[in-house]
C-alpha cells in the first residue's frame, strides 16, 4: 500500500493540454474517484500515474519517492481497464494465476494456488475457477479482470471506468463489492469515471476535473452540498441542480451580489394552493421507475425535482414554492457562501 502525489503535473498532446498543472494527494488506503466529462483529462491522469504517459512538467511521487519517469513495470501499480481482456483459452484459475507466474516473481505453485483462491473468494467466483473464461457472464468476466489486478497485491490500483460496460444491476452489485474489497484490504485506489453514482457511493474523496485541471476535491457530501462553483454543483445530483437567474424569484435573504440560485430537491418546499396566490405550477411528472421527477414552471423558468413518493401532487396543480437555504452563485458562477 502507498500514497500518491501529483505536483503541478502537465501533459500536452500536440497543441492540446490534456492535463494542466494538476496537484493532488492520495493518502495510503484512500479511494479517490476522479469525476468529469469526456475530455476532462481523467484517463490521461490515470495513465500518467501508471507510467503509460510521461508528463511534460511536474512530478509524480509514490510513497515520497520520485517516480515521474519510471517505467510502468517498475511502479508496482495494477491497471484495470474498461474493457476486460481475459485469456480466452485459459481457465479462470489460470487467468488469475497469470500475473503471479511471471518468471520475474518466482512464486511457488503452492503459494499461487493459495493467493488465487483467496482472491476468488473475495470476489465470490470460487465456484467458477475451473470454467473457461469465455463461459462466464459479463459481470463474472469483469470480476476476473479485477481479480487479476488484486492477486498481485500492488501498492496502488488504477481503474479506468471498470464498470461502465456492465448493465445497471451488475454495476450496482460490483460497486458494493469493490468498496467492500477496498475496505477489507485497505488498498489505495485511484478510480476514473463519469458516473456520478459510482463516485458518490464508492469514493472517500471525489476530485472534480475540468479541462485538465482539478476544480475541487472533497468527500461526496462536501462536493454535493458545498460546491465551490456552478460547474461542480452540476456534476452531482439526479436530477441535476436547477440553476435559475435570481430575478426569477428573489428569495428574501439572497445576497446582494447573487446572480443565480442553485436549487436541489431539498432546497425547495412545495404546497398546494389556489390559483391566485400560486407562484408556480406543476407541469408534468416523469416516471422513471426508481425515481419520479416532477417538472415545475415558475413563469418562464422550469425546475426539475425528485418527487416525494408519499406526495399527492398532480399535473396542473397550482403551487406555493419557497426556497429553503438554496445555493447562490455570482456572475461568473462562483459560489457565494
Amino acid at each position, binding site marked *: 500500500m502507498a500514497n500518491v502525489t501529483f505536483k503541478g503535473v502537465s501533459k500536452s498532446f500536440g497543441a492540446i493540454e490534456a492535463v494542466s498543472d494538476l496537484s493532488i494527494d492520495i493518502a495510503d488506503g484512500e479511494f479517490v474517484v476522479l469525476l468529469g466529462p469526456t475530455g476532462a483529462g481523467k484517463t490521461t491522469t490515470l495513465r500518467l500515474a501508471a507510467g503509460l504517459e510521461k508528463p511534460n512538467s511536474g512530478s509524480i511521487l509514490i510513497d515520497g519517492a520520485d517516480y515521474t519517469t519510471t517505467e510502468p513495470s517498475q511502479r508496482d501499480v495494477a491497471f484495470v481497464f474498461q474493457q476486460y481482456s481475459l485469456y480466452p483459452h485459459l481457465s479462470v484459475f489460470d487467468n488469475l494465476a497469470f500475473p503471479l507466474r511471471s518468471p520475474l516473481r518466482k512464486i511457488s505453485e503452492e503459494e499461487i494456488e493459495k493467493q488465487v483462491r483467496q482472491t476468488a473468494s473475495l470476489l465470490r467466483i470460487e465456484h467458477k475457477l475451473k470454467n473457461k473464461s469465455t463461459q462466464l457472464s459479463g459481470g463474472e468476466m469483469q470480476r476476473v479482470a479485477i481479480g487479476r489486478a488484486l492477486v498481485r497485491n500492488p501498492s496502488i490500483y488504477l481503474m479506468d471506468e471498470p464498470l461502465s460496460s456492465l448493465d445497471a444491476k451488475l454495476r450496482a452489485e460490483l460497486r458494493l463489492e469493490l468498496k467492500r474489497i477496498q475496505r477489507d484490504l485497505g488498498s489505495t485506489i485511484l478510480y476514473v469515471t463519469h458516473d456520478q453514482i459510482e463516485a458518490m457511493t464508492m469514493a472517500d474523496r471525489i476530485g472534480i476535473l475540468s479541462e485538465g485541471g482539478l476544480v475541487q476535491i472533497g468527500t461526496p457530501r462536501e462536493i454535493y452540498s458545498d460546491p465551490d462553483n456552478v460547474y461542480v454543483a452540476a456534476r452531482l*445530483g439526479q436530477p441535476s441542480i436547477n440553476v435559475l437567474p435570481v430575478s426569477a424569484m428573489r428569495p428574501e435573504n439572497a445576497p446582494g451580489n447573487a446572480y443565480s440560485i442553485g436549487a436541489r430537491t*431539498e432546497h425547495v418546499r412545495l404546497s398546494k394552493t389556489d390559483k391566485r396566490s400560486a407562484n408556480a405550477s406543476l407541469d408534468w411528472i416523469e416516471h422513471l421507475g426508481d425515481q419520479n421527477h416532477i417538472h415545475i414552471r415558475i413563469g418562464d423558468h422550469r425546475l426539475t425535482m425528485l418527487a416525494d413518493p408519499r406526495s399527492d401532487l398532480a399535473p396542473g396543480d397550482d403551487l406555493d414554492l419557497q426556497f429553503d437555504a438554496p445555493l447562490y452563485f455570482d456572475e461568473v458562477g462562483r459560489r457565494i457562501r
Partner: protein
Amino acid sequence: MAEIRVQNLRKMFGSFTAVQDSSFVIDDGEFVVMLGPSGCGKTTTLRMIAGLELPSSGQILLDGGDVTFNRASQRDIAFVFQLFALYPHMNVRKNIGFPLLCQGVPSAEVRKRVEATAELLRIDHILDKPVSGLAGGDRQRVALGRAIVRRPKAFLMDEPLGTLDTEFRDLMIHELRELHNSIEATTVYVTHDQIEAMAMADKIAVMNHGVIEQYGEPQEIYDRPATMFVADFIGSPSMNFVPFHASLEPGPAKISIDDQPIVLPDLREGIEDKDMMLGIRPEHIQFDDNSRLRGSVLGAEYLGTTQIVTVTTARGDMKARVAANIPVQNGETVGLVFDGHRLSVFEEQSGRAIQTQLHDPIVPVGV
C-alpha cells in the same frame, strides 16, 4: 407509419424454444421497448418482425397485411443496429442520402429530404463535413439520420445505445425520445437496460425465457408488476421480498411479520393457506423506532438527495431508500415500517401477483 400485430409467434432453434406463443399489438406511432436479460428472446422477436428470422409458427401483421413470410426488403421497415456504422469515405450529406439514392429517388428530392432530416437532428451545419472528424454524438445523429430519411413504416432498434458510455447514453435517450415525438414513427426497441426502457417507452414488454411476462406502460409495470420476475427486474435497487404464510379472504387484509402488523392493499382475490411473498419497493420503507420488525444497518450508499440503506433483518437483507439527511450508523439497530397501500403480494411458487386494490380500474392519482 403502421400498426404491428404479433399473433402466437413462436420460434424454435432445434429443440430450444427461443420465443413461446407471443401475442401483442403495437399501435401506430407507439414506442415499444422489449426488455429482458440476455437469452430471453427479445432480439429473436425483433428479428422476426424485421424479417431476418422466419417464425416456427404464428403471424406478423403490418397495418393488417400478413408479412410473416415476406423478405426483409419488402417490409418497409428500417433496422438500426449499433448506431456507429457510417461510410467513412462519404461526407455527412452523402451518408444520410445513401438509402434514398439506392431507391432511385430523384436528386432534388434527395437534397430536400436530407436537409429536412438534418434539421430535425440539428446537424444541418455539418452536412458537408467528412464523417471521420465528427464527435461521437454527431456520428450517431448521422447514423440515425440515415435510418429516418427513408421514412419507413416502422423502426426496429437492437440495443442501439449498448456500447455508449453513460454520459452519451443519457443524452441520446432524450434525443431519441424527442425524435420519436416529432416524427411519431412506430418503434420497437430492444434493450436489457431498464433505465432506457423506463425513460423512452410508451409501453414495455418484459420478457423472460421466451415469454412476455408483462406488457404495459412503464409506470404500470413499476407499480403493479404482474410477476416476481418483473418486480425484481425493474427498479434499482430491486424490490425487497419477504416470505410469509397466510390464509386471507378478499377485502381488507392484515398480516404480521416478526409480530409487526402490516396492512396490505385490499385483496381482490383470496389466499388459501399458501406460501407468499410480500414485495416492498425501497422507497416505501421508512425507519420507525416503534416497529417490531428490526434489523441492523449494514451500510449506506449516499446519493445526494437520498441514500440507500441496507438493513440486515431476520428475514434477509432489505434495502431502503430514505432521505440523505437521516443519520445512520453502521451496526445501528433500526425498526422498519412499510407504506401499506403500495405493497405487492405474490404467490411464492408461481411468482404471480395477487390482484389487489392497486389493480382496480381507477387508480388513485399520485406521484
